[in-house]
């Protein structure tokens, strides 16, 4: 079994999380008309993740796109309607998503020492330690083929 990979970055919102990765190489919007608050299923014009659920996932994407309502959409899906992600990881967490993640009380991590889009695959098991805003955070990645074994 391959050793888990560890990426080091910076916490933009604090917290700990563990879950399955959902990776997008396109920017993402948490707005209620792009990831509906009642479903958590992506429905974005010309977006490869359309049709996939973000519920309970650790979502990895380059940065935000689209509406500023992404902040309240992220908050609401996590704290109110229960279809939100467990954490977000970006090349750069845009302040739209920082505001949402803080209110949702989920970790948000960026400025990683390797490109998270290249290093993490959908289905990998990801663990995040992000104890303090602005301080170092770690992302531990267990590749998909080992993920079940790791969790059992």
């Amino acid at each position, binding site marked *: 079994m391959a050793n888990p990979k560890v990426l080091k970055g910076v916490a933009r919102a604090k917290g700990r999380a563990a879950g399955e990765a959902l990776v997008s190489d396109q920017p993402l919007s948490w707005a209620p*008309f792009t990831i509906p*608050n009642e479903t958590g299923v992506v429905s974005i014009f010309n977006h490869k993740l359309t049709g996939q659920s973000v519920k309970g996932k650790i979502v990895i994407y380059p940065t935000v796109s689209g509406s*500023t309502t992404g902040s309240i959409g992220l908050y609401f899906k996590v704290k109110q309607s229960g279809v939100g992600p467990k954490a977000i990881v970006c090349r750069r967490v845009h302040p739209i998503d920082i505001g949402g993640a803080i209110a949702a009380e989920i970790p948000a991590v960026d400025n990683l020492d390797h490109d998270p889009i290249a290093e993490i695959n959908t289905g990998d098991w990801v663990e995040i330690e992000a104890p303090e805003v602005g301080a170092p955070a770690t992302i531990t990645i267990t590749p998909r083929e080992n993920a079940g074994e790791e969790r059992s």
Partner: protein
Amino acid sequence: MRLTDHEKAMLDGHEGEAKALAMERLVDFGQAVEAEEMVRLSNVHFGTCVLMPRDTPNYFKYELGHSPLFEDFIAMGAKVTDDPSCICSTDPLLLQIDKYDQEGYPWNHKYFKLPRAVYEGVVKGYDVCKEMGWILPQSCTPHFNTVIPKTGEYVVSVESSYAAYINSVLGARANRENTVTLIYAAITGVHPKYGTMLDENRRPKVIFRLSDELKDNLIYSADWAALGAAIAMKSNDQVPAVLNLPIPMSNEGAKLLTGCASPGMNDPMMHLIGVTPCSDSLEAAFGGAVPAGIETIELALDDLKEVYQQLCSAKTDQVDMVHVGCPHLTYYEIRQIAEMIQGRKVNDNVYFWVQTDTPTYYMAHHHGEAEIIEKAGGKIYHSTCFGLLPLRDWGDHLNIATNSFKGVKLFGGQGQGWFFGALPDLINAAVTGRFVSTRWD
């Protein structure tokens, strides 16, 4: 963060629990975005809340997400800031409330009806927000009706196209603001200073130059929206400086060009050389010599045509809805519509929706354009953003035609097919029920 004595007093609770809570949350956000200080605001532009009981059917579908954040402050009896220099204003919401029961509007048509409980929640939200001290333009273009920020002022705005207009045309400063801290900003009148509020983040990083042919073909609102789209899609999130624009630029051109910010740009700042304050020249935009090696992208008419194609996703030529007014239409745009549709008849199978702000709506009624549009079978309305309605429930079989880049990109993933076209083609689509693009014939 460095706080002023007044900000510290708010944080320490000397001005009540609401301001203390709001300041605490603003400081948290400020630390996360590495802000060093707060700025005093001249405008907070956010949305009215929708006050529905949690057990309302489909509560999760109709709550955009911000109302729970309001509820803490409503429970405290909080008011928005009493700083007379700071206006707290509002974006459009789900409907024009006095026409809730009338048929043929986006909130009430043969494919959808907004539930009464949601309508009642909107009305209750209006009333409570007024009591809090908000003024309610319910407009995504407050710079054309209610709030006109001046050079050097700071604004926080839910509305990205407004933020881009503030930065690029008015010379004031705003981010595409996160929609969590907007309520805290309204309570306190201040916000962390970061992003495109800071000089260093406003400088251009890429240059666009329009060909003369492109410059001479910016005729319709859709052309300006497509130009903004072309710049946004090629700028890769870098602040652009744009050369060879037609000057003087119409209000509509400026509105639609900067309107690309919401779907296409994360930093809502464009140096429109000759328009943007303090950017009379490329050197002025850069604050000195143009850096060596900076990328210059030549934009040709084909780039505009390509955007028109990219924003069309419909599989057939059938049109079920024609929507204009994202961002809200100006009076001049309404007049163009009235001139083109006068004496014609909207197809029985098509909804033709004309969306504007409140003053323009009444002006169009006063001068007769509204009557012309409605006599033709169209509907004109105000206070509304049709994209906030759950289009995903309307059916995948429908095709919608628009001249809004923002509309397609933000709302276009919910199942419907979309056409992007110039106004004459949209009017023809409304009349015939078929979309035929003639713009580049």
